[in-house]
């Protein structure tokens, strides 16, 4: 009996490890760590090199994991390019990323990550293509919904879908309320990742809730203090707090006298 129990435990442990390796393939490899670091530092050239390496690997091996990584690196390249306002690189990365994510979906239609990356990259492409919303909006939303359906624990999918909800007008299915709801869900699933907190910070700032915005961005900074996107949002929040403070500052005696005169 004991031996059976041990065997079951061993098999379960093996299965969990295999699953973790599959899901975590994106998180753990040295290459992914290096690419994430480059994203955080907004190093476009470095990320382009990494993208090129994975692109070659994907072409040679035709493996799902390689296409998935290629799509992910392109998402990160978009973020780095945005930090430098480099629209050309941004658009190219989004387009190549869409192609890679499409291939990943084709190779593994049951992959929530692949659908999430495809939905996210289509969304990235929208503002850079004439009529982008009409061309890619619906498909992007469908892909993100599919990603959540396939894996209700995919925190990234909730983040991407939340962004889409937030910026879509209500008459077309958008909902700010839903956006907050999904971001909170993402925090529940992955409390130590930075992305949901960054977006909660931004949305709270837009709603004029600066204290909540500050709290969220500080949580994001705690999770990853190096990400330039986080630091950009942080500086945005603190500067608008300063502005608000200046606005509230009581008038000096001189100004008051001038006003009275």
């Amino acid at each position, binding site marked *: 009996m004991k031996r059976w129990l041990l065997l079951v435990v061993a098999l379960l442990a093996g299965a969990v490890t295999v699953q973790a390796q599959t899901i975590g393939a994106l998180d753990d490899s040295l290459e992914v760590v290096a690419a994430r670091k480059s994203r955080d530092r907004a190093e476009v050239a470095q990320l382009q090199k990494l993208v090129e390496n994975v692109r070659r690997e994907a072409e040679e091996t035709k493996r799902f994991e390689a296409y998935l990584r290629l799509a992910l690196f392109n998402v990160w390249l978009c973020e780095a390019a945005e930090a430098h306002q480099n629209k050309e690189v941004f658009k190219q990365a989004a387009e190549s990323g869409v192609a890679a994510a499409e291939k990943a979906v084709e190779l593994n239609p049951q992959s929530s990550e692949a659908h999430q990356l495809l939905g996210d990259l289509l969304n990235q492409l929208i503002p850079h293509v004439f*009529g982008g919303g009409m061309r890619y909006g619906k498909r992007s939303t469908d892909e993100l919904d599919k990603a959540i359906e396939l894996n209700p624990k995919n925190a990234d999918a909730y983040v991407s879908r939340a962004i889409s909800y937030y910026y879509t007008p209500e008459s077309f299915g*958008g909902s700010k309320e839903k956006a907050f709801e999904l971001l909170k869900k993402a925090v529940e699933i992955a409390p130590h990742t930075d992305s949901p907190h960054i977006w909660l910070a931004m949305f709270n700032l837009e709603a004029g809730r600066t204290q909540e915005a500050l709290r969220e961005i500080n949580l994001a900074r705690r999770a990853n203090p190096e990400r330039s996107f986080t630091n950009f949002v942080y500086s945005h929040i603190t500067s608008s707090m300063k502005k608000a403070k200046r606005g509230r500052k009581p008038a000096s005696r001189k100004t008051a006298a001038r006003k009275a005169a």
Partner: protein
Amino acid sequence: MNTTHARRVRLLKCLLVLVLAGSHAALYHARAFLAPAPADTQYPAAQQEQGERFDEIVRGDFFAGMMGDDARLDRVMKFCEDILAKNPKHAEALVWHGGGLLTRASRAYARGDSALGDRLWERGLKEMDEAVAIAPRHMGIKIGRSATLIGLAQSGWDASDARNKALLESALADYETVYRWRRPVFSTLSAHSRGELLFGLASGWSILGEHRKARAYLRLVLEKCKDTPYESEARKWLKGEPTAVVQHDCRGCHVGRSR
């Protein structure tokens, strides 16, 4: 996803329908948008014979189609195709049919069929261009095409694309012509008509980076749309970053999400 990107995605999924529905109907008719005809209404060839305006016959089905009702879109597309089979230079049928093709293109893109989407997209734009070329003094046709193109540009824009830049410029030129034509009676138009036209111009010029022109139209909104929600919206844009792209959600859009 990042900040600027997300801001620009603001109109992303609405685009064409809002602008086209709002601006076209309101401006052209200078009165409230009529409720779309129920789906079981007999198709109105007879109405056309009775001299009813073309856009009034087709727009209900077109807008319902844009909002997802394929049966009504198919019905009105066939109506236009029948007319075009008899008279390929029927400008109104062409401009509406072109809009319908863009809607069909968006459906193809949503299914992931980019090749079909691209074909329909190109045909749709071409038909709209042809319509304006056939009837250059027809206000409704100008508005239909311009509103569509400005809406598309709001939903995504590639500044390095010369062809689309030319399309948007021509759309804005036509909108300015419409404004000139309507100027003598502008104050008698509904607030919706005035606001949508001026905001369309402000938005389009801001997309092209012509911020002085864009702000001039925003100031015109203050003057011509006083005491309306358009005035406060324009004020907000004028207060903000002077080089921002003006994003405008059509107010009081008469197209329901479902019927």
